């Protein structure tokens, strides 16, 4: 059942197994690749964050406090492009997913380790191309590249930005492919589908979306580049094209993409809650199937981004209805997580703070999503700060907090060290507070009629904008703290035991940090996921 490390090999782990820069740049070890990704996306997160800081500073004044309109338009475009495609989409899957998934199913690595490394290089290449477009002068179409603005009228570096995203899309596809085959084929003996942790179910659902949706984005970007470079009409109405076709194709990918961003965070939360409640997750099968349900239904709702775009009333009705349907599996998760804590043994370490924060903020984001799904309501608030607040509640209050929770949860396993608990808790609270101060006023601004993508705005909106910017500065500080103390703890933190949280997953049955091949002996699984009862002796519980 348990796999314990032999004493003399305890000091050898995936970090010190090999030395030198090429042992990292040419590694095929999923754990090292996870760290490569972590390094890249952290840099990109702070780049996108820097743009956000500039935006919020600018919005202190109705006339734009620090930059002109052209620069502001570029700022929000690049903030969106980087945060969506170069931070949120790869974040949890390629860092925590890469590191944890093979171990969680009891495998030595992913199914295709070399493809995994290729994924990272494609991601880096895409990021370089996108950043090239920033340094050449930027692009100002909005991250949604609507036509004919992006193809015919925009002045910026649309093609290079689009190509950067295009290249990174292949990174996504390969990751999804790798994860799916790993889950299908590489589970340890005894680990049936229904003994897999929910983390694996949600990563599987995410991978399905990666594989099915990303190619559509690829082809859509190719088409706008062709239109722009060759000046032929594909989406240009002057040449018989349809700008709405672009929107349909774009959102057919981009809506499932938001589930790529949130399902992994849900995966993380589904691990943290049972661990810090010491109870199996409530309604395992419901939560497992809800991940698949979200992935499936998520493909059917893209039109809710187009309610006022000029689609037919009947289309709009269908999309609205389906948007409510997709909320049901998400609601199931929220209720089941909460029920897991009920009658549990709850301990509020940092990962748990982030997970609980996720549930609360995701609920608010989700409920405002329900409001947006109501056709009549959407007419007034679409394209306003109400929508901006809604998706930031999910993306930042949800996905980023899930990411941070997961990093803290698995930090002992990844680094072999413990992070400083007090500082971590403090940062979590600062982030929670700063986040709400930044984005809650934006709901009100949206309802009052403040449009998004406005570098200057009507004066009556100023007070709430100032409040929001104040929140953003606090949020920024909150993010810098973990960067600092996590790096500090890597070198100076106390040594971590194999299973500091007394969690039940397979990854906790090996050393912290793990050996290169994860397990000395292939695990044989005879227990259900989160079955504390079956493992209570080993975990010293009860």
């Amino acid at each position, binding site marked *: 059942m348990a796999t314990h490390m032999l004493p003399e090999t305890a000091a050898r782990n995936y970090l010190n197994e090999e030395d030198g820069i090429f042992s990292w740049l040419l590694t095929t070890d999923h754990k090292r690749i996870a760290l490569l990704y972590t390094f890249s996306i952290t840099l990109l997160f702070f780049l996108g964050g820097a743009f956000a800081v500039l935006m919020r500073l600018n919005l202190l004044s109705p006339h734009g406090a620090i930059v002109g309109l052209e620069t502001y338009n570029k700022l929000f475009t690049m903030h969106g492009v980087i945060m969506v495609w170069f931070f949120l989409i790869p974040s949890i899957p390629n860092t925590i997913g890469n590191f944890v998934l093979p171990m969680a199913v009891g495998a030595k690595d992913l199914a295709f380790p070399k493809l995994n490394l290729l994924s990272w290089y494609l991601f880096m290449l895409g990021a370089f191309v996108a950043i090239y477009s920033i340094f050449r002068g930027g692009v100002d179409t909005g991250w949604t590249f609507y036509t004919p603005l992006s193809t015919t009228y925009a002045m910026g570096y649309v093609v290079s930005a689009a190509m950067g995203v295009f290249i990174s899309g292949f990174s996504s596809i390969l990751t999804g492919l790798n994860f799916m085959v790993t889950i299908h084929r590489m589970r340890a003996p005894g680990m049936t589908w229904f003994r897999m942790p929910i983390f694996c179910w949600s990563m599987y659902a995410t991978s399905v979306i990666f594989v099915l949706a990303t190619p559509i984005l690829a082809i859509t970007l190719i088409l706008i580049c062709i239109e722009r470079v060759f000046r032929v009409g594909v989406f240009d109405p002057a040449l018989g094209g349809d700008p709405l076709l672009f929107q349909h*194709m774009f959102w057919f990918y981009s809506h499932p993409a938001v589930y790529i961003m949130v399902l992994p965070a849900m995966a993380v939360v589904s691990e943290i809650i049972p661990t810090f409640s010491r109870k199996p997750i409530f309604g395992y099968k419901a939560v497992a199937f809800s991940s698949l349900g979200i992935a499936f239904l998520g493909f059917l709702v893209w039109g809710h981004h187009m309610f006022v775009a000029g689609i037919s009333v009947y289309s709009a009705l269908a999309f609205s209805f389906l948007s409510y349907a997709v909320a049901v599996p998400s609601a199931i998760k929220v209720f089941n997580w909460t029920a897991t804590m009920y009658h549990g043994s709850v301990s509020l370490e940092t990962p748990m703070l982030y997970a609980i924060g996720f549930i609360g903020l995701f609920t608010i984001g989700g409920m405002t999503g329900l409001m947006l799904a109501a056709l009549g309501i959407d007419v007034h608030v679409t394209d306003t700060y109400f929508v901006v607040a809604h998706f930031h509640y999910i993306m930042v209050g949800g996905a980023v907090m899930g990411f941070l929770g997961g990093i803290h949860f698995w930090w002992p396993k990844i680094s072999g060290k413990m992070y400083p608990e007090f500082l971590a808790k403090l940062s979590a609270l600062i982030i929670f507070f700063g986040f709400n101060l930044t984005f809650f006023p934006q709901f009100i601004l949206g309802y009052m009629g403040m449009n998004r993508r406005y570098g200057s705005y009507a004066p009556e909106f100023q007070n709430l904008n100032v409040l929001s910017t104040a929140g953003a500065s606090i949020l920024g500080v909150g993010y810098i703290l973990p960067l600092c103390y996590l790096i500090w703890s890597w070198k100076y933190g106390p040594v971590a035991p194999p299973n500091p949280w007394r969690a039940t997953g397979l990854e906790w049955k090996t050393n912290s940090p793990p050996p290169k091949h994860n397990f000395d002996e292939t695990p044989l699984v005879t227990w259900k996921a989160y079955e504390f009862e079956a493992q209570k002796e080993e975990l010293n519980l009860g």
Partner: protein
Amino acid sequence: MADTSHLELREQFSTPEQQRESAISGMWIFIVTELMLFGGLFVAFTVYRLRYPAAFTRGSSEMEYWMGALNTGILISSSLTMSLAEYFVAQNKSMRGAILLLVTILLGAAFLGIKFTEYYLHFHDHKMPAFGFEETGPFAPQVQLFFVFYYVMTGLHSLHLLIGIGLVFFMFVPTALRSLNAEYHTPLDNTSLYWHFIDVIWVFLFAIFYIPGAHIR
């Protein structure tokens, strides 16, 4: 006990069966992504075809039906030779398999030769958008739209075919050297899957580009 050293059981796998099944699963998933890639184009094309039937029929009438049909025959034959190659290798007749792989490459090359000849002829007839496209008549912009899709879709297909030829070539060498044989031929199976997929895509491309205007000459 068979010499498994050349099977190259990768370290992440526990058994050769697991390795083989993983590889085949991976290829199928990859094919699904390719299907989605082409699918997006097919959907966009269909939208415009339904909206501008006359213009698209007109565009289709510019195609040389016999060249398209010949190419279809060539690719279907190449799928046959590919399958036969796989069959013979699985029967441990790797030499025969290698020859059939060579024939497959030649057929694929023939396809590309005809395709690029068509492109050249279209260019000559001023039917290449952005490169001297000319069309008189009432719905010229929509006819150009047809040709944009024609070049993008058949061009993407040709790119995939070129990659396929490359893959088949990479299979040819180990097959001729008998490293791919009855015991281990997974890469060949995967290449074959990919090849068939490219063939199927072409059949649909032929249907949407060549057939609508074939009755008009």
